[in-house]
């Protein structure tokens, strides 16, 4: 899933300066699962904002709403009645959701309440880790199911650098060396031959480097 992290409260307050009536819009997708942008977080953030603005003697009216997903036109449509009543929408969706909303509601400012951080999963409740960098050309077959692009700090494709120490990365003793993990796993799977051949230079066109990407299912386009 896409992981997002709430922006600092002061930064959000600054974005909302001068506004009297807004919507705080949650998303029922990934950011609900990672506990940063769902129904509950909309309630908490809205209360915080109301209190802070009341304290300043500058109250703000907030409509709270959470859409099923903000990255899907079908659900984005459901914000239409709210959009007519407010000066801006503060979205708790990921960056994709904020932009889908902005594309649909052309005359309304759309502000992000989250920093979209990475594609990953939860190790346990409230603990999220990055696993994929969406490079567009999956290499997990060669690397024991552990991604060197997302998990090696230098995205090295041909083995660990000289900074790997006792299974940890040189940038931080808390960070696992991806290549230690890969090699341990290749060894246990009896697939070390996949390490010995040189991984050729990568074609980054499938990555963001090829420009903004799209995926079209032709069979659905008729």
């Amino acid at each position, binding site marked *: 899933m896409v992981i997002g992290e709430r922006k600092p409260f002061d930064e959000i307050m600054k974005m909302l300066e001068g506004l009297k009536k807004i919507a705080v819009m949650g998303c029922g997708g990934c950011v609900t699962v990672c506990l940063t942008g769902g129904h509950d977080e909309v309630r908490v953030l809205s209360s915080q904002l109301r209190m802070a603005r009341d304290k300043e003697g500058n109250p703000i009216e907030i409509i709270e709403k959470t859409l099923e997903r903000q990255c899907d036109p079908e659900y984005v449509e459901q914000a239409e009645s709210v959009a007519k009543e407010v000066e801006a929408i503060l979205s708790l969706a990921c960056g994709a959701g904020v932009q889908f909303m902005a594309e649909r509601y052309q005359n309304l400012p759309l502000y992000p309440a989250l920093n979209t951080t990475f594609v990953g999963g939860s190790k346990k409740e409230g603990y999220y880790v990055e696993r994929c960098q969406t490079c567009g050309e999956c290499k997990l077959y060669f690397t024991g199911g552990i991604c060197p692009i997302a998990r090696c*700090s*230098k*995205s*090295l*494709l*041909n*083995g*660990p*650098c*000289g*900074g*790997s*120490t*006792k*299974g940890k990365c*040189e*940038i*931080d003793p808390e960070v696992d*060396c991806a*290549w*230690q993990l890969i*090699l*341990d796993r290749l060894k246990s799977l009896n697939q070390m031959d996949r*390490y*010995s051949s*040189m*991984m*050729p*230079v*990568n074609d*980054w066109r499938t990555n963001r480097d090829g420009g903004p990407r799209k995926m079209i299912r032709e069979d659905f386009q008729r």
Partner: protein
Amino acid sequence: MSDEFKSGSNLEKVLKSGKFAVTGECGPPRGADPEVIRKKSKILKDKADAFNITDNQTSVVRMSSISSAVIMIQEGLEPVMQMVCRDRNRIAIQSDILGGAALGIKNMLCLSGDHQKFGDHPQAKNVFDLDSIQLINTVKIMRDEGKFLGGDEIKGVPKLFIGAAENPFADPFEIRAPRLAKKAVAGVDFIQTQCIFNLKKFEDWMKQVVDMGIHEKVYILGGVTPFKSFGMARYMANNVPGMDVPEELLQRMKNTPKEKQADEGIIIAVETIKRLQEMPGIAGVHIMAIEWEEKVGEIAEKAGLLPRPVV
């Protein structure tokens, strides 16, 4: 190894002649004053066969490796241009290889590069379009096939002697010799190792290298760094990633009176070189006297490696 020279560099000639090679190292200044390189060059001249010019080492901005190398050439020394994958994509890398070769650089060292986290611009975006092994292969394709990575023909092929680093003390240990084999397949000509303090571990690694026959395809230069003080030894033991300083060496430095510690550091370095000279598969030594360039000559002298051969 064939009879023809790949680059015609002095370093290549010394290694090919079978003589025990010596390389040194020179860090460019944090400014635009060429005199710093000229001064260091005067100190280093004739003390080794070639001298690495670091490329923004530890991710701290310095004068570029290429321009520092050219100043060194003007002073009559032979540089080894270091190049890291951290700061350039394949377009800039190939462009700089052409530029370096055009300016007379004949040796190049291919490195991944320290992570920018350690430097003075931790906010920087890193590149890592290629890794160090792919960089080796890129230079080889350019030199031996006369082609760019994209496949087009190069008019005016860069003739470079291709080097790389290897750290036998990093983990996982058992992958370090196979990783070197990968560099050999990619096309590396010579290897400079990380600073050797743990000779026992280094011998274990060299034995694997020799058993795999890698030393017959690639010249291996052992890395030697003299301790300036006990404080430096302790810092390297505890703060430099992938460094292995045995306790007994730390004790030896600690038990030496402060005013004698620098001399002791030199003695240890010379002892290490003597051991390396007897080690099967070792073709030379890479002396990294960090911001202590004036000691390269003294160490080489005491190890009986001066004068350097004229080839």
